[in-house]
């Protein structure tokens, strides 16, 4: 029995519907939900916390269905993109807001503890209106964490912050969550959140979860073209030509590709390759060690700061490659040039 299980959750809002959605989390899991805008991420969170009533389905938290409980009885915390601090209270009063029926000095201790771990202890007497965005969000996080919620929901908590602040808060949050072992569902558009914080990732599209699993799995083994595009992987259908010595030979259009993953001969399978696991060369390298090597034509090159996104074609098949600046500097490719792409057979993944 999972800690949280959302079962067959359905809601119909006219133009939009959640369709029989399922989601399972274990205690202490940090799950991220990603998906295009309008896919229902916020609505899912509002259902779990109780501001939207689903038409069907159940939300079982610690073995009890809470779908008919009032929001204040659920013990679920929420953090929004716009902080939602109470403007008439000080930072201290905001953080202490959920601590009730506890002795004054204990409240003080708890608030000071959490404020210290989020580095806002010097702001406790200020009003939220006088704080920077990052300080406000740390206050909002402190407010929802100090009560030790059974489940913490976050709806794009860092979207309004600049990258530097984001990184800093991510780190602080990570430490607090690790210490408290809070179970979290975090909606985000920023893949960095996934890598820095999450154990699990779920991909939502048009009110349905189409893949849910460990973050690495979702990135390395997207179940369909949509997820692959979303996480930036190349994705093809292929048929299994032959198998030998633990290597599967896959036929993919006008060329073949080798994989260490298993599949039966004649089977039609899906193949995914991560762009950052491909190496590019000017000339075929000597020592291939059994890796795949393809002669490609460069289509497009784009510098994205720390990485170069190179789009190449093997015959008519498009392949995305992410390369570091360092690796690119020896190549200086232009569109139309020929480059050799090398892919380890370990990195050619067969998805089911």
């Amino acid at each position, binding site marked *: 029995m999972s800690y949280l299980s959302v079962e067959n959750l359905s809601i119909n809002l006219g133009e939009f519907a959640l369709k029989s959605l399922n989601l399972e989390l274990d205690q202490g899991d940090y799950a991220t939900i990603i998906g295009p805008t309008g896919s229902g991420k916020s609505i899912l969170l509002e259902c779990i916390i109780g501001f939207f009533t689903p038409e069907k389905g159940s939300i079982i938290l610690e073995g009890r269905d809470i779908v008919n409980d009032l*929001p*204040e009885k659920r013990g679920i915390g929420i953090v929004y993109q716009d902080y939602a601090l109470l403007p008439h209270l000080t930072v201290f009063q905001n953080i202490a*807001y959920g601590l009730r029926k506890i002795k004054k000095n204990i409240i003080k201790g708890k608030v000071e503890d959490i404020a210290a771990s989020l580095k806002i202890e010097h702001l406790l007497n200020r009003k939220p209106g006088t704080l920077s965005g990052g300080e406000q969000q740390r206050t909002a996080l402190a407010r929802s964490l100090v009560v030790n919620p059974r489940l913490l929901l976050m709806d794009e908590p860092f979207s309004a912050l600049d990258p530097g602040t984001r990184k800093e808060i991510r780190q602080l949050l990570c430490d607090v969550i690790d210490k408290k072992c809070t179970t979290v569902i975090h909606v985000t558009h920023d893949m960095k959140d996934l890598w820095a914080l999450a154990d699990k990732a779920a991909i939502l599209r048009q009110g349905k979860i189409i893949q849910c699993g460990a973050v690495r799995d979702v990135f390395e083994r997207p179940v369909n073209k949509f997820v692959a595009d979303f996480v930036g992987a190349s994705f093809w259908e292929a048929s299994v030509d032959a198998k030998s010595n633990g290597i599967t030979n896959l036929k993919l259009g006008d060329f073949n590709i080798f994989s260490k993953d298993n599949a039966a001969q004649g089977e039609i399978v899906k193949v995914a390759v991560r762009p950052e696991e491909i190496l590019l060369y000017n000339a075929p390298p000597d020592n291939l060690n059994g890796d795949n090597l393809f002669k490609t034509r460069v289509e497009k090159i784009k510098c994205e700061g720390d990485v170069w996104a190179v789009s190449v074609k093997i015959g008519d098949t498009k392949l995305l490659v992410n390369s570091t600046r360092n690796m690119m500097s020896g190549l200086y490719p232009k569109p139309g040039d020929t480059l050799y792409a090398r892919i380890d057979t370990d990195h050619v993944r067969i998805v089911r």
Partner: protein
Amino acid sequence: MRKIGWFEAVLIVLPIFLTGALLAAIISLFLVPTLAEIWESLLSEEMLFSLKLTMWTSSLSTALVFMVAVPTGYSLSRINFWGKSMVKAIIDLPIAFPELVLGLCLLLLFGNPVLQNFFGRLGFDFVFTKQGIVLAQFFTALPYAVRIIKSTFDYIPPRLEFVSRSLGYSMFETFLKVSLPLAKSGLLAATIIAFARSIGTFGTVLILAGGSYMQTEILPITLYLNISYGNMPMAITSGIILVIVSFIAILIFEKSEASI
């Protein structure tokens, strides 16, 4: 100097002209009688009676309006129920209604023998009585207060209330701890407008409570009665008091509006 187009010129001249005309009309109120006449009227038995009655009926009706308008405004702002737009339209109706018609409707309703009998047993009688004044003022002022309070709550992000509830506060506790404190200046504005509106209620009071001398005589009635007797200083003095009270009310209102 910068050139200005004809439309911009109209936009500047028109409000100045309007304000000037209005101001002139108000000032003339203060110029007609002598100070001695005003003083004498102010201390007359009739004026003191009217002033006292106006103050306590208006205070009472304002308190009642407040108690009803706060939950009503909150409900209209936050809760979706069947027939809500109808309810909103009907509550607002007295704003557009002639006061006399509102008075007549209330008279017919509360003058209905069955209802009059029922309220009589509870110790209430609204027809041609001081209680009637409060009732008339209440219904006249209510829609203004409800409007202001509803729009005040509209401005408070519901997320603040959601967060409060997620932290264990019931809907009512959240209302007390979050919604009300944040609506403070709107509530003040609504109270002031309700009070100003109550003090100035004439037609509704005249029909429901009757405008009888030293009985159900509030300031607007004093003004009206004395005009018909030809006693200008008394009429003008009640006018001056009404103007001063409204002016103070508007000043406070503008201030509280600015701080919303």
